[in-house]
């Protein structure tokens, strides 16, 4: 396990991803993206 933090500039969705209020709230949270291919 590493302790290093990602230094990528965080982004925020500019529009809600669905009409559900919970998703709208989460969409305002800054996030990073990890992408994996797993066969």
């Amino acid at each position, binding site marked *: 396990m590493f302790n290093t933090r990602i230094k990528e500039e965080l982004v925020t969705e500019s529009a809600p991803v669905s009409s559900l209020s919970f998703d709208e709230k989460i969409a305002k949270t800054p996030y990073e993206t*990890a*992408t994996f291919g797993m066969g």
Partner: protein
Amino acid sequence: MEKPTYYAMGDHTEVISIDFDPDLISYSELLDYFWQGHRCERNNSSTQYQNAVFYRNDEQKKLAEQALKNRADTLGIKPEKVATKIIPVKTFTYAEKYHQKYAIRGDIRETIDSLFPDAKSLADSTVATRLNAYLGDGIDQDTEKFLSELSDYALPQSIVDEVRGRLER
């Protein structure tokens, strides 16, 4: 290929792309799940199903390379023997809607589909992601916590009842 589809994928690879809050989980922790979740000594010959970390910046690349070395150490093999690739993301295309959140099946699928107009909105939804995780299996689940949060999602009651019924069985 600019617009790959399931039946015409070109040189694209099927991937899972995770948007995460780094205050809750780190990229390195996700890397740990990734390395533990696949066999890295051999890779698939097809690009479609290859094992790979697709990094998005230099920091992710550095962490992925270190994680590869750590995994090799754990397995007692040389890093050069690890077949999993570490390559940059070029373009990402959402899979078709019917490929998204596959564990959400049965009676509630139609209602869920009606809530999300396209593949992106369904794929990016935290609510749909959690439903998919808990209706599927193979993950560490805190079902009681999930059920206690279910009412916060403002889902149609028919879905709440169905999910509750399935998980409480």
